């Protein structure tokens, strides 16, 4: 028998963006249904590297990133756990003079945002951070850090549930249409009426957007990570490398998480596995950079499904075709730090129709400037379908 739910806001996708939006909307008094086809926080939000980093983001992301920056230290009071958030600092390394020059340029470019970046030379890297290898220098952002991705989104969803949001897991949205009053969603044996809808469906958000006449060039990417056995503390900061390569952090328990390369999707492209040559490359680079890793064991690899946009900026903001629909997806492998701030912004958009944080650069219209407002009242869609955009 079909269960009917009437709510102010239906959120499609229970990742960190959707879950934090649900919690923010509840604190404003809206009634919220949070839907996930699987489990909240089980996709990209839960299987990313766990970097909580502003450094390296393009300037247009920094206002939003700074907003999030203020939320991370408050997780305990907000969601009941600290998410193992450590304000360790983020150190970005340069392997060549040219890379160092680009770190210097970046520091100058983002000076107005007050990230307190500090450029560090070769000798200091060794003395302060114990970094070996052929590294020219680095840029240190003391306020950045890392956290446990497996916990944060899951805890946001649980907190939203405790705050009165209806959290429906294993509930795939199979139909959505714009109605006179708002939206009608079908999800399994649940029929939902909502005045507003947030599309935070991550790697599955493109088909939802397309159903409302807004196709986007979303691509799926699959990061790959390795984790070592617990080791004595040797790495106090979150490490990145200019121009890519690997990124690494050591958690309080002692395990070192190292990411890099790309995993390969399985036949069902919702799932992926790290490639053997990829993880061997990560292990080789990590053991070159960090002496203690030369004698460590890798105990676990993982991957996940991320949504990446061609310009590596997310899509955040109102739909151009459908009033009441708000998009927030495509964080391109860099959504973890920024997501709690996005949640607040989405709640403001629902309440006020605008937000105090600039998000114009993330409008969906940048991919479909000439898009015709489709007949959205007839739109029907399937999330999780195989119709990914090229």
């Amino acid at each position, binding site marked *: 028998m079909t269960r009917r739910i009437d709510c102010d806001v239906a959120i499609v996708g229970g990742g960190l963006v959707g879950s934090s939006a649900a919690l923010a909307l509840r604190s404003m008094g809206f009634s919220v249904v949070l839907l996930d086809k699987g489990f909240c926080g089980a996709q990209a939000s839960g299987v990313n590297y766990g970097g909580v980093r502003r450094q390296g983001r393009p300037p247009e992301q920094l206002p939003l990133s700074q907003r999030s920056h203020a939320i991370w230290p408050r997780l305990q009071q907000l969601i009941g756990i600290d998410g193992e958030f450590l304000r360790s600092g983020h150190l970005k390394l340069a392997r060549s003079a040219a890379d160092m020059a680009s770190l210097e340029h970046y520091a100058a470019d983002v000076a107005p945002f007050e990230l307190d970046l500090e450029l560090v030379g070769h000798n200091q890297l060794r003395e302060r951070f114990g970094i070996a290898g052929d590294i020219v220098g680095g840029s240190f952002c003391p306020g950045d850090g890392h956290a446990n991705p497996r916990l944060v989104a899951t805890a946001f969803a649980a907190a939203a549930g405790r705050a009165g949001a209806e959290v429906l897991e294993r509930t795939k949205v199979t139909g959505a249409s714009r109605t006179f009053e708002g939206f009608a969603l079908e999800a399994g044996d649940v029929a939902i009426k909502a005045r507003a809808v947030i599309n935070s469906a991550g790697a599955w958000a493109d088909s939802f957007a397309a159903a409302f006449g807004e196709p986007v060039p979303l691509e799926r990417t699959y990061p790959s990570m390795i984790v070592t056995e617990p080791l004595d503390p040797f790495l106090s900061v979150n490490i990145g490398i200019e121009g890519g390569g690997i990124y690494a952090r050591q958690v309080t328990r002692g395990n070192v998480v190292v990411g890099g390369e790309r995993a390969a999707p399985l036949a069902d492209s919702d799932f992926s596995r790290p490639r*053997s040559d990829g993880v061997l490359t990560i292990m080789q680079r990590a053991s070159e950079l960090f002496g203690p890793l030369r004698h460590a064991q890798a105990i676990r690899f993982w991957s996940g499904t991320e949504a990446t946009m061609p310009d590596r900026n997310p899509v955040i903001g109102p739909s151009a075709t459908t009033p009441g629909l708000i998009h927030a997806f495509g964080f391109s492998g860099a959504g973890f730090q920024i997501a709690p701030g996005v949640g607040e912004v989405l709640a403001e958009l629902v309440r006020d129709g605008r937000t105090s944080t600039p998000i114009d650069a993330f409008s969906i219209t940048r991919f479909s400037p000439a898009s015709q407002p489709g007949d959205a009242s007839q739109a029907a869609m399937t999330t999780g379908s195989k119709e990914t955009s090229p």
Partner: protein
Amino acid sequence: MAERASPLIVGAGPAGIRAAITLAAAGLRPSVIDEAHACGGQIYRQPLALDGRDDRARYGSDAAKASRLHRDFAALGTGVDYRPRSLLWNLGDGVADVLRDGVSQRLSYDGLILATGATDRVLPIPGWTLPGVFTLGGAQVALKAQGCAIGRRVVFAGSGPLLYLVAWQYVKAGVDVAAVLDSAPLSAKFNLLRALPLAPGIVLRGLRMAAELALRGTRVQLGVSGLRIEGEGRVARIVYRSASCEHAIACDGVGYGLNLRSETQAADLAGCAFRFDPRDRAHLPVRDVSGRSNVAGVYLAGDGAGIAGADAAEAAGERAALALLEDRGLPHDPPRADVLERALATIDRLRDALEAAFPFPSHWAAGLADDALLCRCEDISAGEARRAIGDFALTEMNRLKAVTRIGMGRCQGRMCGAAAAELLAAQTRREVGAVGRLRAQAPIKPIPLAAGLSVDERQHDPAH
């Protein structure tokens, strides 16, 4: 036309050995990778160094089978590409990643027979991680391969045929075995009558062992519950309840286990479909009577695909190899395949009876104390797991892993996964088959980061 790559056999226990012999007899030259230094698997494990004992002393009444397998495999000589001390750590698309002597190699194959075997199934009890506590299989390996005992005065506890076998082997070796504590009640043992006509030799031998244990002064106690192991820093005694009385036995070694569990990660990485098996209380890779999985060219044999013992493993290894030959368009002896399938069907009925005679204590999880350690690698107690299940409304194993770290450590859930599933099922009032299974990821077992370094880079290691 390019020559086809050789088939790959993973595991050199009874299933892997029979598969290799069968493929070699048909003119193929399979690769056989195995973690051990010599063939035989766990049951017919060979000693690391000669210790003066003969096969009869080492393997008891299984000596003839052990000798024959060792001899037949050795006789293959260069007819197989045998790679001992080799760890399979990843699989995919016809390529296996194999670690040997610290170096990772890629091995292409065409046709894959997984004979990955089993490990002890252990459910936590208070004190199960104290030094001096071993699994039943571990206690047996110590004796068989290293010629040493796990203690001077030993108690064996749990369930399964191995419980009596190991206790008997210890007694034969001259160790003081204080007690055998069987979680199954006497009523369960009447199921052995069902097993008797199917395998009179095995059943009578088991009964004889139990009788001999009792005659030699070992206390054989059925229907025990409330097991806990106590001691300061190491095992000093084991405590149990029987007929609502609590008893304690002083000992310095405990062998504990509840039958076996299949090693299925390689099948998972090979893309095999899984189904829940009520008898083994585990998700197992799907296979037909021939050992074919749902993935073309991937075959499953032996305890790695469902617990059935060494005799079944030999038959299943040979049967899977015949299936591979048939699928490859080679002569494959259909009458022999029929004989093997009939033998396997008989053993399957025997397994039903044995499982009923040594039933899994499924009520265990609900009664496990909150302070008992559930996940050894990540140091997670039963209480912490229960709290997370409640706080996050968890109903599925991979979510339990994500939130609590259970199954995330060195063992990757191989040791704690079955226990965690039982606990999750009990806590959420579901059947254990309904809470899902931990998805396997590489590496199957830990591998050194230095495996990513080339030989040159390794030589620059300042530590060497």
